[in-house]
């Protein structure tokens, strides 16, 4: 590995050959401003189109300014990052970008969190000297994502995520010059495309061009409707990230405060999606064991590997790209949907109210959940099982506008009977968690023995594609794990060609799993935040007394009082589903 020597702002720096000027400068604490550039370390995700020209620096001997993010440092190079020429150029280019951007800051959803706004502040822009025509394009609204192309700065991050990382391929820059715009093919609306609503485009957009559909208004109206009983369920990944919206460090667990805040907001019952995650394990674990038994007995019709089905973006991806394999995923619904289904039957009965008088709201790290609760099959006589899915960000905004001092709230408990969860339910929030939870239950149900150790480190980590073999008392079970739809595609193609080695595969659409969901607090390109959230999830698991889904007393009661047993007729009706071929 060859090392090279160069000078940045008169400071010597030694780096590996191939390092960019930007990285070399960062290594000695010089932070060159960037706008379109984004790198998520550890996840192998990098966007460097070299288009914004904000990171330009002076290089001795070079005629024009060099973009630091995509110019390789060379031996003997002399770089000046903040000469008057470079700074003037940077500010002029930013003024140009701002001159083609609506002055909507006061009412924009991204205000306070906007990379463009921050850059204008950082570079001290006080006047835009080059006013002129602004690009306009129609607004595109879908069940989960809103596209306001007038605010787009053509950084190409969304295109990179959608094509290279997720391999969904919906977004691409079209037209030319000033008329360039990022759009689905044939300029169709997002809801007509193969968009999975994974929301990774929203997670990386530096401006307010891509945001989520805001349902807080509808939720507030329900809260103030005296005829409605409003139930809320909270996803595991939310409690590991919500604190970031209140200036807490990434990785701070705020479960107790989150419950307290929801109570003060006026929700009638505060329940936990982790409860229905335990329920999902009961159903999916039983399904897995049924298939394994048939496989061991030599049944040639059995479909293996079984695939997890709790991620709605993954399900839609599957329905568009691999509909020929519809019988392979588990038929179990997601925890969000199982919760709604059980709440509007079992719990509504307990309260003695009609399902139409119950409003179920979920707090999710996800954008696809907004789409999922609107799927036709997840409603009864037109009344949806889950009425609204709010993102972590929307909840934080609601807490702030309600003047609740989040940071000084006491820690409170979830309500019964749908608030109790085991550690297995919590780890659903991270990649590797769903399958680890499934293994904890499947192992004990299959072998009849108690697990010597509850933690399965071999299933944990951040690499996009992982595999491990778990020994079920002599029976080796091959487990595959993928996060990011591009990685999921690889595993699916193996299955399609008959080359799959796995018995069970867990798939999550978002990097890191739900902790990196499209609805989480913005990470602004810092992948360390995802790492810290993951650590928090496993910490919450280890702090619980009950670690395995089948030990949850409220789940046991739910089966005794209502469902019978896993995969019973009633369980099938309420907790299972089918998939659809979405190729036209």
């Amino acid at each position, binding site marked *: 590995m060859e090392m090279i020597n160069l000078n940045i702002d008169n400071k010597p720096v030694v780096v590996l050959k191939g390092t960019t000027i930007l990285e070399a400068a960062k290594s000695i604490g010089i932070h060159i401003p960037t706008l379109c550039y984004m790198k998520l370390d550890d996840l192998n995700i990098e966007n460097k*189109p*070299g*288009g*914004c*020209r904000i990171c*330009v620096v002076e290089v001795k001997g070079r005629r*024009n*300014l060099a*973009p630091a993010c995509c110019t390789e440092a060379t031996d003997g190079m002399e770089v000046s990052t903040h000469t008057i*020429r470079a700074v*003037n*150029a940077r500010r*002029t*280019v930013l003024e*140009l*970008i701002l*001159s*083609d951007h609506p002055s909507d800051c006061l009412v924009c959803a991204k205000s306070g969190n906007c990379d463009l706004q921050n850059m204008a502040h950082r570079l001290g822009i006080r006047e835009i*000297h*080059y006013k*002129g*025509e602004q690009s306009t394009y129609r607004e595109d609204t879908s069940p989960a994502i809103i596209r306001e192309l007038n605010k787009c*700065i*053509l950084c190409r991050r969304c295109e990179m995520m959608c094509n290279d990382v997720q391999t969904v391929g919906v977004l691409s*820059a079209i*037209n*030319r*010059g*000033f*008329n*360039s715009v990022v759009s689905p093919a044939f300029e169709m609306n997002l809801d007509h495309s193969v968009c999975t609503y994974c929301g990774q485009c929203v997670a990386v957009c530096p401006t307010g061009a891509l945001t989520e559909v805001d349902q807080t208004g509808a939720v507030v109206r329900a809260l103030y409707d005296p005829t409605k009983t409003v139930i809320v369920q909270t996803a595991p990944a939310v409690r590991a990230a919500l604190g970031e919206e209140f200036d807490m460090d990434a990785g701070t667990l705020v479960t107790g405060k989150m419950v307290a805040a929801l109570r003060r907001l006026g929700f009638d019952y505060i329940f936990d999606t982790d409860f229905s995650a335990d329920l999902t394990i009961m159903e999916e674990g039983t399904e897995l064991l049924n298939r394994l038994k048939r496989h061991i007995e030599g049944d040639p019709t059995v479909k293996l590997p079984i695939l997890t089905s709790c991620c709605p973006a993954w399900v839609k991806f599957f329905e568009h790209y691999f509909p020929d394999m519809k019988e392979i995923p588990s038929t179990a619904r997601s925890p969000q949907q199982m919760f709604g289904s059980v709440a509007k039957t079992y719990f509504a009965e307990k309260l003695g109210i009609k399902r139409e008088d119950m409003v179920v709201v979920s707090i999710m790290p996800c954008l696809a959940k907004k789409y999922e609760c609107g799927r036709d099959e997840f409603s009864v006589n037109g009344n949806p099982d889950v009425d609204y899915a709010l993102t972590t960000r929307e909840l934080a905004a609601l807490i702030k506008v309600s003047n609740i001092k989040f940071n000084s709230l006491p820690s409170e408990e979830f309500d019964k009977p749908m608030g109790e969860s085991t550690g297995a339910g919590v780890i659903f929030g991270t990649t590797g968690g769903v399958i680890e939870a499934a293994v904890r239950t499947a192992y004990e149900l299959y072998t009849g023995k108690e697990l010597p150790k509850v933690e399965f480190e071999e299933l944990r980590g951040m690499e996009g594609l992982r595999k491990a073999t778990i020994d079920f008392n002599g029976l080796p079970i091959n487990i595959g794990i993928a996060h990011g739809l591009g990685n999921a595609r690889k595993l699916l193609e193996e299955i399609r060609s008959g080359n799959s080695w796995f018995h069970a595969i867990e798939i999550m659409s978002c990097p890191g799993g739900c902790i990196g969901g499209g609805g989480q607090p913005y990470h602004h390109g810092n992948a360390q935040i995802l790492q810290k959230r993951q650590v928090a999830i496993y910490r919450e698991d280890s702090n619980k007394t009950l670690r395995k889904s089948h030990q949850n007393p409220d789940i046991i009661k739910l089966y005794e009082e209502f469902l019978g047993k896993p995969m019973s007729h009633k369980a099938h009706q309420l907790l299972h589903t089918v998939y659809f071929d979405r190729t036209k």
Partner: protein
Amino acid sequence: MVAIAKFYLEFTVEESCGKCAPCRIGNKRLFEILEKITEGKGEAVDMERLSILGNVIKDTSLCGLGQTSPNPVLSSLKYFKNEYHAHVKEGRCPAGQCKALLRYVVVDDKCTGCTLCFRNCPVGAISGEKREVHFIDQSLCIKCGVCYEKCKFDAILLT
């Protein structure tokens, strides 16, 4: 020469791929300023804006198109500064190219009142009696130049 610079900018604005901000937006703004100048609405500060913007576009563009597209503007600013001055400070186009800055005016001491221009003006901008000095109403004149062509006494001045 201002009109020529504008002509080249119109081309490069069309051809720009749109990937980098300085060329995509900067060239458009350069063109808009030139349009403003050739329409007679230019301000003195526009010349400085053209120069600063042109140089930044040259210095920061991703490819050769953006790195050279401001050249017609920058070199015409350097070698034909008087033409820019005339447009911006005097409201006059020395090259006779910018229609908005052209005026057709009757030269009083040469006009014989033959009414030829009056009869041929397509918009009725010219007024005047037989054997009396005629007058062109600038607010109606569309600068078509027919009166200039028809006059046999060189009594119409293009300025």
